[in-house]
């Protein structure tokens, strides 16, 4: 496969896949941390929902 004339296209396709999937995972993990932090700050300030359990 290494001497294939179209190797560049194959590598580019898998690099694109890795970038897109890692980007998606990074965005979701970062968003989770942001929301969790914001919720903890609000709860520390005394804000609480009636239905709050400790299910997070």
């Amino acid at each position, binding site marked *: 496969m290494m001497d294939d004339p179209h190797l560049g296209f194959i590598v580019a396709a898998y690099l694109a896949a890795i970038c897109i*999937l890692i980007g*998606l995972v990074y965005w*979701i*993990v970062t*968003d989770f941390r942001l*929301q969790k932090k914001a*919720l903890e700050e*609000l709860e520390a300030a005394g804000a609480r*929902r009636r239905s709050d359990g400790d299910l997070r």
Partner: protein
Amino acid sequence: MNLTFANPSRFLAFARLAIPWVGALGAVLAGIGFYGAFALAPADYQQGETVRIIYIHVPAAWLSTACYGMMALSSIGTLVWRHPLADVSAKAMAPIGAAFTFLCLITGSLWGRPMWGAWWVWDARLTSVLVLFLMYCGILALWNAYEDPARAGRAAAVMTLVGAINLPIVKFSVDWWNTLHQPASVFRMGGSTIDASMLWPLLTVALGLTLVMVCLHMAAMRNEILRRRVRTLGLMAASRETQGFSA
């Protein structure tokens, strides 16, 4: 099960347990599939080594329509049953579906250049997948256009269901029109036309990436539930402050 996890708190508890297991299983299966695709499957007699791109392109294409199908089902849940997690599910799925559709378009283009001699052709399959990607972008924009998630959910649900008409067009475009894109070769009447040595890695990668997609969907749903809790608590805190000023 549907009613049990209709409660967002129960869903969060379930997601906390399921996300790592589903994600890990998906990653392992995709890894096995890619190993089969690169180390065990032969080169194609016409495409040569370029066939390796198909092992990521085809699962991405399947997932692009599967994600939209899931969004359409969730939209029915929003409009008909007002299921508490339905619009959360639809909103969480939109960027994931858009990412897989974009990946499908990119990898298809990278396969098309050496095989067809063109990065892009305006044939029915490619154009309908581009329309699918634009639908995802429109739905994402609509979600961000409204402050109130309930109103945004209803508007996005209507748009999603209107856009669902594109799904059979994507699937059957290669049968209804004379396209440069080849016809279905896996899920077709009369069975797959792909040799078993190439089919099993393809299906294993597809199953693995489907589990990864489910894992990402659950994680994005969890984020959306937390975002709505933050919004509710923020509004409650603002309301208390307003009452404090007026008292």
